[in-house]
């Protein structure tokens, strides 16, 4: 029998850093969370990344969790425990706001993608003023990034996810070189240069 005697004095694992990424199918939410988890490992943390796919191609809501820490147990982050809510779409920021811890930070792409329920005219997309005031009242800080503008300046509409990560990198005070290595490890080879460009533009956008 294998018995690990662990004494009561074992120190409680130091606090994890919890990220939740939320977007719409096709926005690159999963790739962004791969990069973020990879970065955590590069920074010397234990990292876990959890996602649910299946419906992601079909315009559904897509979320993933990334946790960094000395020791990370649960792959799922509970409501009220997210330190950084990274939303690639405004409505998705609102949808998962209840996951944010008091004083947590929201980074949101200033883009609206209407769900089918809105397109069908059944319900209205929330007014922008309401989106902004709700986010502001719930979060310790809200950072808005115009991902679409950045991707237009960069010249590739698919790089908004990496541009938002650029913005996150500025908020986290992490070395750019580590981010670029993490991006290199996950972005398709032929798109690395353009992703680096989008990353830098995003990083500048919140400075």
């Amino acid at each position: 029998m294998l018995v690990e005697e662990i004494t009561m004095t074992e120190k409680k694992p130091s606090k994890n850093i919890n990220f939740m990424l939320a977007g719409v199918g096709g926005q690159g939410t999963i790739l962004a969370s791969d990069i973020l988890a990879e970065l955590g490992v590069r920074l010397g943390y234990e990292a876990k990344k959890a996602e649910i796919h299946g419906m992601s191609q079909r315009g559904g809501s897509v979320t993933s969790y990334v946790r960094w820490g000395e020791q990370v147990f649960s792959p799922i982050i509970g409501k009220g425990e997210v330190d950084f809510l990274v939303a690639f779409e405004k409505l998705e920021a609102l949808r998962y706001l209840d996951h944010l811890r008091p004083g947590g930070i929201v980074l949101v792409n200033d883009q609206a993608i209407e769900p089918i329920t809105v397109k069908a005219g059944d319900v209205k997309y929330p007014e922008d003023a309401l989106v902004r005031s709700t986010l502001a009242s719930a979060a310790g800080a809200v950072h808005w990034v115009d991902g679409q503008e950045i991707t237009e300046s960069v010249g590739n509409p698919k790089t908004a996810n990496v541009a938002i990560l650029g913005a996150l990198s500025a908020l986290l005070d992490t070395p750019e070189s580590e981010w670029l290595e993490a991006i290199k490890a996950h972005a398709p080879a032929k798109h690395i240069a353009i992703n680096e460009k989008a990353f830098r533009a995003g990083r500048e956008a919140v400075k």
Partner: protein
Amino acid sequence: MKRLLSGNEAVAHGAWEAGVTVASAYPGTPSTEILEHLARFPGVYAEWAPNEKVALDAAIGAAYAGRRALASMKHVGLNVAADAFFYAAMTGAEAGLVVISADDPSMHSSQNEQDNRQFAKFARVPCLEPADSQEAKDLTVAAFDLSEQFDTPVLLRLTTRLCHTSTLVEVGTRCDQPPRSEKYPRNPAKYVMIPANARRRHPVIEQRILELAEFAETYEHNRIEMRSASLGIITAGVAYQYAREVFPQASVLKLGMVYPLPKRMIADFASRVERLIVLEELDPFIEEQVRLMGIEMYQPENLTLYPNTKTIFPLIGELDPASVCAAGIKAGLLPVAPPPAPPTGGEATISLPARPPVLCAGCPHRSTLYILHKIGLPINGDIGCYTLGVIPPLNAIDTCGCMGASIGVAHGAAVADDSERHFAVLGDSTFFHTGIPALLNVAYNRSNVITIIMDNRITGMTGHQENPGTGRTLQQKETVQIELEPLVRALGIQRVATVDALDVESIEKTLKAWLKEEGPAVLITRRACALLPEERKEWLPLKVIEEKCNGCTICFRIGCPAILKSEKMDAKYDRPLAEIDVSMCTGCEICAQVCPRDAILFRSQMAELYCART
């Protein structure tokens, strides 16, 4: 070197390191990526089989031939493969045989949340369950060893959270396994399960499970972690992570082998702690057995003990730290938390528009579902993207149970003399999976079912896997392309037609004509999935001519996410005009075909428009 790997990637890596030679599977969320990854390793033969039973037979066959082999599937796939699973439990094999079941607590993409640990007990097969990717790799290797040591298939049970969570893994190198038998075994007493032999094998497998239970007492993947003695938790799989997160000071008996259980180890652990609980996902699989061992468990006074359910933790759905914590508080295991702060955002204050998955813009299934809804007869559906046709405005699926059920369920209604004619709707891959015998039954017993095979040239829902109709194998070898129409005719169906799935008029005309005729019929609606790389190159967004549109709403009824209600209103009827979202529209022309006012331009007209401009 440590790398971040998903549970599925880690299983593939483990199988490769263990020297697996043959791997067979049918795609199914959350298991699909196991074979997709394994297929890329050298020295491994990996294939998509038409269904899970065929896959498991293939793995068993390879293991009989002395090569390490595996079959992987989602939980419900093991129902399909159960027949093979049970005979393999009886015979054992010459080399390691591992059956991988990826269960789906909370049914993220499944029709039920059955707990397949029950299959292990049912078939007298040992079951291993990892708690993270490192264990997923290690236990895959261990499963092959265990299989050979005890001459038994081994069930490796995963869950969605394990499959799709990435954690650090120390990866290794391959340990090649030469065939374990020189020559194919001629051992009928072991491999021919006629009743006389089966009767001799049954005591063998009952004895084997007793020996495995003894082995489990000292198995390296079962371990006790002693911390505080006030609470002891028996746990396994991802639930271990929640145990450590929510009860950091508790002692834990972590089981890597969840069947059979180590009775003395559990009794020993129980004797060291004041309160003993079991934390597991879904069924009270361990809990029930521990109770049967006569070991006393913590029973909160305020909670009722029912014989066949769990006392403390939820029976239904995936666990998470919040649900485990809430249950712990209710059971008096954790201090009562302060009342939660008033909600500051989210759905509590604003009602948010839902974002359900929908049939993609350009989906070739849309036209058929639209016509079927218009016809209004019962539609027996199946497992695949087209199940999304249940959502308004298409409302085109009346039943959906499991793979291949559409045809059989429609046939049942037909032979029961249901007053309405039934349509059965299924995709190409689902037809290959289990639709073929059901259609054979329709042909043989001459029922009035009209079957529609929506042939989008790929296995769509699970993310574009090859199948017998695509002309390519999992390992990207060119192969014979199975044609549906000759196959359907060979099954005995005489009334068969193949039409372009985007040709709304042909679909409607054919089905309406067939409704006037008696007897079985099969319509094959053929068009590649709009998301395939080759199809994406052909995308061309269409356009609504505002002057012609009067907001009649017919194009809204096809349920296409690329058609919007414009803010502009029709002057006469005061209703919104249609508008096309050019960022989504692929130019499938279904909307243009259904528009009664020719207000939506076809591709050819769009080309003219561009030419006129330049």
